[in-house]
């Protein structure tokens, strides 16, 4: 079974703090993704990475950055947290197979920015 883990289930941070969210997958997947989920908006892609040190912007990258120094680890960084970044953050990974892409998700991190 694919296992995707996220460093924290719940986080409370103050406005202006730098926040690190860590994600690790154990299935040697090339692709990793960061989403946020908000009520009524579904899952929105923040950033993704298809290889070590590679990153691509998703639909809502503003206010975020990412780091992928090792294949199994993908970090999401909130440079200066703001209250509108209060959300559920979901990490996913996938092994691209014959053009079909099944993403496997971690349990999520619920972030509250005060």
């Amino acid at each position, binding site marked *: 079974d694919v296992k*995707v883990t996220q460093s924290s*289930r719940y986080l409370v941070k103050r406005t202006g703090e730098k926040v690190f969210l860590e994600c690790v997958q154990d299935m040697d997947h090339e*692709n990793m*993704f960061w*989403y946020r989920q908000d009520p*009524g*908006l*579904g*899952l*929105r*892609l923040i950033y*993704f990475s*298809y290889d070590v040190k590679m990153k*691509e912007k*998703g639909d809502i990258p503003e206010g975020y950055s990412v780091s992928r120094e090792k294949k199994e680890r993908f970090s999401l960084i909130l440079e200066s947290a703001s209250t509108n970044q209060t959300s559920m953050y*979901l990490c*996913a990974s*996938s092994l*691209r197979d014959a*053009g*079909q*892409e*099944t*993403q*496997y*998700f*971690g*349990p*999520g991190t*619920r972030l509250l920015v005060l």
Partner: protein
Amino acid sequence: DQQVKQNSPSLSVQEGRISILNCDYTNSMFDYFLWYKKYPAEGPTFLISISSIKDKNEDGRFTVFLNKSAKHLSLHIVPSQPGDSAVYFCAANENSGYALNFGKGTSLLVTP
């Protein structure tokens, strides 16, 4: 612009009956479609998928139907169980892309 649309935010079904969740898409380049199930405070769990070369895929109580001409897919759950109560997300991917496009989700409530 939303390329994958789930027009019903919620659905309520009695236990034992059929649940039908619908999804429409606008991008004709999408060739792989997935359904995910999500419980509150958990990550989405992959449920079932279908390739564009098929029009039906079945896995136990779950069946996904794809109508390419209508750009429409649906998830059938038969029989529905209270444990099926969750938010269901439809997603789509095109062969040249890495990222999935998700709908906004449909919240299913299965009542005893």
